[in-house]
């Protein structure tokens, strides 16, 4: 590539003035020219001395630059940034990673320095020339300089266990995976009896992260004890809930962790085959996971003789076809069998009669991806995090009208307000927060008065809400809560599998009833219809076969309860 003529530096901040620049000056700015910086000699600003290092003699190693390939980062231009960096710097030194989860800073570029990785973000493709000219590759304080990424308050306040490698490693590098502690959990598991592995998971207190919070170890114990010619492990990666994207980010950012977790699950229960049911709305995750599975097979991490242990397990990806209900586990199994995603009545539970009638572990992506860290560090180390019966860490996802949207992994027990205000920084519109919906489209709408609620399955249930998959969607004061309640019914009507009447018909009636409430002129009509609405909600809650119909009343009732003024005509 040609040498760039240095254009003006975007934000000329004096280099080497620690603590004077950037919105978050948690640490002194890394100084160019530090002793152990791998690229000593490329210090001068101006045309990067490194850019001719790629085709000529084996010069000194080029400074590595990290740009996310996460689809959220790509949606705001990360590919274009990476392309420009590759053109000006060195193609082979531009590493595509997952996202650190600070999505409001995407595209976030990181450069390796002697002290660690220094971040810049958000970076637009047009800024790259100026940033390089200003010394970004040497970690200079230039443009949207952030300092050491690991030291940013947003990162430091978290406890990343499940997401420890996401945004750090190249998702498709087996060497990176091993260098960052990968396979430690699997090796530990293979050295134990399957029953011991199951008991470790029971002792860790891990509960299903897909929504219902059922203890993972207990589920595995049932499958282990079931007698069958063939058993399966199925990963539920349907993640249809609005406001949730942690499954996607984990698969795009650290797919080997999911593969490792599923392999441990298979060993623990005696399964030979695994399936990941991944929704079609996530094409990048599908491509990354398929590629990772190929690499894992080639490395002997999957296949007939995993790590020379004699244990065999193989894994396949199945792509969904645009149906929310296929996230419900029995509906997912029907879909995996090639049928319409109609919910099955339980019992029999999938642990005993699951995929093709065989004992099957069905777990969420995050449940499975947390298994390696539990096996690597022991049950007690994991259970030391959290509160009450909600142990360990959870990956919360901030979305909607929020200033700093992204992934926060912390121990359970952090309050809703800390997440929305401290991490999220309030709304992106700058108006006051009015409501947050927690736990996806079937979760409750909560007012700011409930911001002291701790993130804890039981505390949320007691408040008529649910933690679900940990998605938190923020709305400002302009939100029309009657419209959101109406949408909850509309969504249920559109996505219902149609098997049972309370859900199939109830949701349609719900839309009608809310319309009547909003258009009624005489006060008595409205009052009557509010009673009818409550009646309908009760019927759906009690009479639906699955939680689609059973939980749709949760957003509706919470909207009426906390934001009743919106239901006046």
């Amino acid at each position, binding site marked *: 590539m040609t040498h760039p003529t240095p254009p003006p530096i975007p934000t000329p901040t004096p280099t080497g003035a620690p603590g004077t620049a950037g919105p978050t000056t948690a640490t002194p700015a890394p100084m160019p020219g530090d002793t152990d910086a791998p690229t000593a000699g490329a210090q001068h600003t101006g045309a990067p001395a490194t850019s001719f290092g790629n085709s000529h003699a084996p010069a000194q190693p080029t400074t590595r630059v990290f740009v996310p390939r996460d*689809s*959220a980062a*790509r*949606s*705001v231009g990360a590919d274009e940034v990476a392309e420009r960096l590759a053109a000006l710097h060195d193609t082979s030194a531009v590493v595509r990673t997952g996202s650190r989860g600070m*999505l*409001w800073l*995407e595209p976030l570029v990181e450069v390796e320095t002697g002290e660690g990785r220094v971040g810049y973000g958000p970076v637009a493709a047009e800024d790259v020339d100026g940033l390089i000219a200003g010394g970004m590759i040497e970690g200079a304080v230039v443009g949207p300089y952030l300092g050491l990424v690991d030291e940013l308050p947003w990162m430091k306040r978290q406890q990343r266990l499940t997401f420890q490698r996401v945004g750090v490693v190249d998702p498709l590098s087996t060497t990176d995976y091993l260098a960052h502690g990968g396979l430690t959990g699997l090796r530990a598991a293979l050295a134990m009896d399957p029953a011991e592995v199951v008991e470790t998971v029971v002792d860790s207190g891990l509960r299903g992260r897909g929504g219902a919070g059922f203890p993972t170890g207990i589920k595995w114990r049932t499958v282990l004890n079931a007698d069958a010619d063939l058993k399966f492990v199925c990963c539920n990666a349907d*993640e*249809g*809930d*609005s*406001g*949730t*994207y942690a*499954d*996607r980010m984990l698969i795009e950012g650290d797919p080997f962790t999911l593969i490792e977790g599923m392999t441990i699950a298979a060993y623990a229960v005696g399964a030979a*085959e695994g*399936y990941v049911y991944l929704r*079609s*709305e*996530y*094409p990048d995750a599908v491509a990354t996971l398929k590629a990772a599975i190929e690499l894992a097979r080639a490395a002997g991490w999957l296949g007939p003789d995993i790590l020379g242990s004699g244990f065999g397990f193989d894994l*396949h990806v*199945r*792509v*969904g*076809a*645009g*149906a*929310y209900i296929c996230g419900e586990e029995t509906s997912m199994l029907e*879909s*995996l*069998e*090639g*049928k*319409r*995603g109609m919910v099955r009545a339980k019992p029999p539970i999938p642990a005993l009669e699951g*995929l*093709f009638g065989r004992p099957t572990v069905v777990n969420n992506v995050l449940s499975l991806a947390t298994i390696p860290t539990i096996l690597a560090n022991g049950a007690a180390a994991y259970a030391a995090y959290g509160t009450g019966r909600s142990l360990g860490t959870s990956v919360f*996802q*901030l*979305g*909607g*009208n929020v200033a700093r*949207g*992204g992934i926060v992994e912390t121990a359970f027990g952090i309050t809703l307000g800390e997440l929305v205000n401290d991490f999220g920084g309030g709304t*992106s*519109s700058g108006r006051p927060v009015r409501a947050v*919906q927690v736990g996806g*489209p079937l979760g409750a709408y909560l007012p700011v008065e409930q911001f002291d609620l701790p993130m804890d399955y039981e505390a949320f249930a007691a408040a008529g809400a649910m933690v679900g998959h940990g*998605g938190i*969607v*923020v*709305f*400002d004061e302009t*939100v029309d809560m009657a419209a*959101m309640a109406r*949408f909850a019914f509309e969504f249920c009507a559109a*996505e219902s599998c149609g098997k049972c009447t309370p859900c199939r018909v109830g949701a349609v009636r719900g839309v009608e009833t809310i319309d009547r409430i909003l258009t009624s002129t005489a006060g008595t009509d409205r009052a009557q219809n509010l009673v009818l609405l409550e009646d309908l909600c009760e019927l759906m809650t009690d009479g639906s076969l699955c939680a689609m119909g059973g939980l749709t009343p949760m957003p509706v009732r919470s909207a009426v309860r906390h934001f009743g003024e919106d239901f006046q005509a």
Partner: protein
Amino acid sequence: MTSEVVAAAPVPVPGRAQRVREIAEELRGLRGALIPILHAVQEEFGYVDPPDVAVIADVLNLAVAEVHGVVTFYKDFRRTAAGRTTVAICQAEACRAVGAVELAEHAKRTVGCDFGETTYDGRITLEEIYCFGNCALGPTVQVGSKLHGRVTPTRLNTLLGESR
């Protein structure tokens, strides 16, 4: 999801039945092969035609009604070709919190068709999607196979203008 079909209306493709049979036979060994087969057929032809259904049912030894039932259950499977570019706008809660409903209204007005429809000239098919997992950077719009975050009406105009 991506459809690169040139024609706006289904036209019988010579040899299509033969090719559908090949696809189905190649994948029939998979567990739960039907949905992977339907995805593969749609990937190649842009939609699943009623005659395809009979061929697939034959290969899998299923009733035609069974395959039909699956095709119609899932939103991804189209029965007719899409426009040259598919524009999918997220309408789920997190995107609604930042103006996705207004963005959709703008798109419908600009493009001149509703969700689930294709413009008269076969240029654009408009679709509503519930969540791309980009909920911190909404409103989210997918144009062809490319995802865009923080899409304003102005930005959408540019994106629509580029899709010719």
